[in-house]
C-alpha cells in the first residue's frame, strides 16, 4: 500500500517523536535517584556510607524540636518515618518554621548528627491569606503545616 508524501512525513515524524518520548521516560527513570535535589532522613539513616559525603537532607522540621543556643540552632528533620538531628550555625531563612519543609546541606558526623552549613526553607503548594488560615485553625479543620 502506497502512502502519500504527507502521510509518510506524518508517520515518520510521529514515530520519531514516539521513540524520543520513550528515551525521555528511560532517562527520567534512570535519573530518579541522581536528579533528586535532596535525600530523606530514612534514606540517609539506611545508608551506612552516609558519613563519607556531603548531602542535602530534606523533610519537615519536626514540631517542637527547634532549640536555639546562641548562634547554634538544633532541629530535627523528619519524613514521618525517620528523623535526624541537624545542627547549624548559620542564619536561618524567614520561612524556616516548625512543621514546614526544609533542606539542609552538610555532612553526617560520627555521632549521627547532621552538621549543616546551608539551610534552605521549602515552601509547600498551599497559598492562602492569613485570616483564612486563622479561621481554619479556629474551626479545627486546619490541614497545612501540621507535619506528619
Amino acid at each position, binding site marked *: 500500500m502506497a502512502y502519500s508524501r504527507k502521510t509518510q512525513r506524518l508517520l515518520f515524524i510521529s514515530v520519531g517523536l514516539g521513540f524520543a518520548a520513550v528515551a525521555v521516560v528511560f532517562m527520567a527513570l534512570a535519573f530518579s535517584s541522581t536528579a533528586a*535535589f535532596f535525600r530523606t532522613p530514612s534514606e540517609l539513616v539506611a545508608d551506612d556510607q552516609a558519613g563519607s559525603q556531603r548531602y542535602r537532607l530534606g523533610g519537615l522540621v519536626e514540631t517542637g524540636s527547634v532549640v536555639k543556643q546562641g548562634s547554634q540552632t538544633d532541629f530535627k528533620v523528619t519524613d514521618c518515618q525517620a528523623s535526624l538531628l541537624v545542627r547549624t550555625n548559620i542564619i536561618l531563612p524567614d520561612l524556616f518554621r516548625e512543621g514546614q519543609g526544609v533542606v539542609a546541606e552538610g555532612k553526617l558526623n560520627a555521632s549521627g548528627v547532621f552538621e549543616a552549613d*546551608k539551610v534552605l526553607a521549602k515552601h509547600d*503548594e498551599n497559598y492562602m491569606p492569613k485570616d483564612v488560615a486563622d479561621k481554619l485553625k479556629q474551626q479545627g479543620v486546619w490541614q497545612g503545616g501540621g507535619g506528619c
Partner: protein
Amino acid sequence: MPLPQDERTTVQMFTRFAQPARFFALADRIAPWLWGLVILGLAVGLPWALIFVQPDYQQGDTVRIMYVHVPAAWMAMFVYASMAIASFVALVWRHPLAEIAAVASAPIGAAFTFCALVTGSLWGKPMWGTYWEWDGRMTSVLILFFIYLAHIALSQAFEDPAQGRRIANIFALVGVLILPIIKFSVEWWNTLHQSASVFRMDGPTIEPSMLWPLLIMGLTFQVLYFALLIVRMHSEMAAVRLRSSRLALMRREQTSEAVAS
C-alpha cells in the same frame, strides 16, 4: 517554455505566501482588540495582585511575585507547545504560515522564560534563602531557555532562511520533550521548588481570593502572546519578502550585465 530556474523560485515564493495575506488581514483586524484586552487585563490584574490581594499566611507580601512569576512560567511552556504544534504542521503539511508562526514565537517564549527565571530567583532569595539551586524544576526551565536561544540561533544560521526555518522546525519538535520534564519534575524527583498549585488532579491549593487575580494575570499574558505573535509574524513575513525581492533585483542586474557584455 518553462520559466528559468531563478525566476521560478521567486514566483513560487510569492504564490506560497499569497494565501497568508488573508490571514494577516484577519489578524490585523483582531490585533487592536487583543491589545485592548491586554491593557484591560493589566489594569485590573496588576493592582489586584500587587496591592489589594491579602498577603499570604506564610510568605507575607513576597507572594505578590507569584502573580507575575506563575503566568510567565505558564507562558514559557504554552509558547513552546504552540511552537512545537506549528512546527509539526509546517513539517507535515508544509504550511508556510505555520513555519512563520513557529519561528516568530521563539523570541516571545524566550522572553517569558527569562521573566519566569528572574522573578523566581527574586522570590527564592527571601523565601528559600537562595537565588538559585540546581534542582529539577529550575534546571529544566533553564534548559528550556537555552532551547529557545538555540532555536533562534539555529533558524538564522543558514544562508537560505527557508532551510533555517525547516531545521529550526525539526529542532523545536525534538525539544518539546522538555515540557513533560518541566511539568512533572516536581513530582518525579524531590525538588526545592514546590509542586503544582493550580493544575493538579485534586483541584487548586490556592485560596479563591488569591486564585482569581492569578487567573486574570494568566489570561492577560496569554492574550499578550497572541498580540505579540501577530507583530512578530508581520516582521518575519516582511523579512521574507524583502529577501526575495532583493534576490530578484540582484538576479536582474546580473542578467542585464551578462547581456551588456
